[in-house]
């Protein structure tokens, strides 16, 4: 009646305001993110930061199916969220930060199409430098170094931490003694009773320790690991030495007539000793050698180790009888 006329007569700024609650924006954003993901993930947490009345920034934490092209999928979510949230809330969504908080295993059927999406979309160029890296590279033909595998080098974290701790303690102790009113650094050094046997012994021990440290610095370490043939340029592989021993043992024990096997796996040489319970020891040795070398081939060591197989009759060895030796 009269009320609509009055409101229309008031100036625009005094007619009232439309307020969109943060909760509403969060719901819109969550909904938009879920739409963009299309079942390949969910939006877990959404936070909204208002900047003034008409502007907002949003942050979305996603849970995505893995494997998928993470950058591509999150970029799609970002664009969709900004578009939909701006349209539906009327706010200016100036920024949408996407974080992938967790990943879960996708069901096998969706793997190929989710990963193929990058090639199909084509709109986004591959990230810098990764285009060549991601393509399927077989073992490059340009060098044997790639295929052979380097020996893994230890980072020496423990020795470095221990050395740093000792140096810190020594320097700290000296600092306390040299503190004002205390000794000067030259007087500390000159006060050492050099002819004391204990000091001579300590000096010798210190020198030996120094040699150990230098050796640690120069040697590769990680003697436990044997390098394997590298499958491609970005991958290195190594196998535990005792695991090689176990594989050789399993190969040798499967031979007929072998009751026990002892394996010593060194870094360059593998010694297999088979104990024969019955039958020809030489035949068992040959069969075990064949079996072990096949197993060694299946490991694919970067530097083929030498394999030596010996056989000895076990305690209750029965010599080959006519019927057993016949085949």
């Amino acid at each position: 009646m009269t009320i609509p006329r009055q409101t229309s007569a008031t100036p625009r700024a005094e007619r009232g305001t439309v307020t969109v609650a943060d909760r509403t924006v969060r719901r819109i954003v969550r909904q938009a993110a879920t739409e963009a993901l299309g079942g390949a993930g969910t939006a877990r947490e959404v936070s909204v930061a208002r900047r003034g009345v008409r502007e907002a920034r949003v942050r979305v934490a996603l849970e995505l199916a893995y494997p998928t092209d993470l950058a591509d999928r999150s970029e799609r979510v970002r664009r969709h969220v900004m578009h939909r949230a701006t349209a539906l809330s009327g706010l200016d969504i100036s920024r949408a930060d996407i974080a992938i908080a967790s990943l879960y295993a996708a069901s096998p059927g969706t793997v190929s199409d989710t990963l193929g999406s990058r090639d199909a979309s084509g709109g986004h160029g591959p990230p810098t430098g990764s285009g060549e890296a991601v393509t399927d590279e077989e073992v490059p033909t340009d060098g044997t170094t790639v295929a052979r595998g380097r020996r893994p080098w230890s980072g020496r974290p423990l020795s470095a931490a221990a050395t740093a701790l000792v140096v810190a303690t020594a320097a700290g102790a000296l600092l306390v003694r040299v503190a004002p009113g205390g000794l000067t650094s030259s007087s500390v050094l000159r006060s050492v009773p050099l002819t004391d046997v204990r000091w001579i012994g300590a000096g010798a021990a210190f020198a030996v320790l120094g040699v150990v440290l230098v050796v640690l610095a120069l040697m590769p370490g990680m003697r436990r690991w044997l390098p394997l043939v590298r499958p491609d340029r970005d991958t290195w592989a190594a196998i535990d030495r005792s695991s090689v021993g176990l594989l050789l043992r399993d190969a040798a024990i499967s031979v007929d007539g072998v009751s026990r096997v002892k394996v010593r796996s060194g870094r360059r040489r593998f010694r297999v000793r088979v104990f024969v319970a019955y039958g020809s020891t030489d035949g068992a040795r040959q069969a075990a050698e064949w079996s072990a070398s096949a197993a060694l081939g299946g490991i694919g060591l970067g530097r083929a180790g030498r394999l030596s197989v010996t056989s000895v009759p076990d305690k209750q060895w029965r010599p080959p009888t006519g019927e057993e030796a016949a085949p």
Partner: protein
Amino acid sequence: MTAARSKVNRCILALVGGAAVLAGGWTALTGLARRGTVSWAPPGHPGEWLRQHEPSTAVTMGLLAAVTAAALWWCLAQLRTTGPSTLGLPGAGTRVSRRSLARAIAADLATVPGVDTARVVLRGTTADLRATVGLRLATHAEPAEVIRLVTQGPLCRARTATGVRLGTDLRLTTPSHRARRAR
């Protein structure tokens, strides 16, 4: 462990080791020479030399404090093995949780036939992301075949998914088990 830190660690070990050899060797040899056990003594005495060139107490204390602080910092730096908890993805501004990515790759690896369990640690930043993968093989798996499957499957997928080179160290072990004799 990044390659750079490994190099610094080895340099520190070599420097400290060399200094220890010189100082310990000098102390032992000078002491033995003064007792008359050996005839040759290393020349000079660092204490005497230092008295002639005595630095001021402030300089000495500053140096010692710096060495102490640097050594403590480096000792603590060894505890930081991985890096920040999230990784930026190349191209987009998206960040992904390092641990969930590592877990997802590990779960993918565990589906490969011949792999019993897999552990993945991601080190470094996006520019130089490296994965250390511990693979425990099933008892009768053939390592070369497992490596082929792992590289063509989960590792290839991880490289495509993240869009980085992902240098990978595979560490294979087989579980210790009793010998089973074919009968």
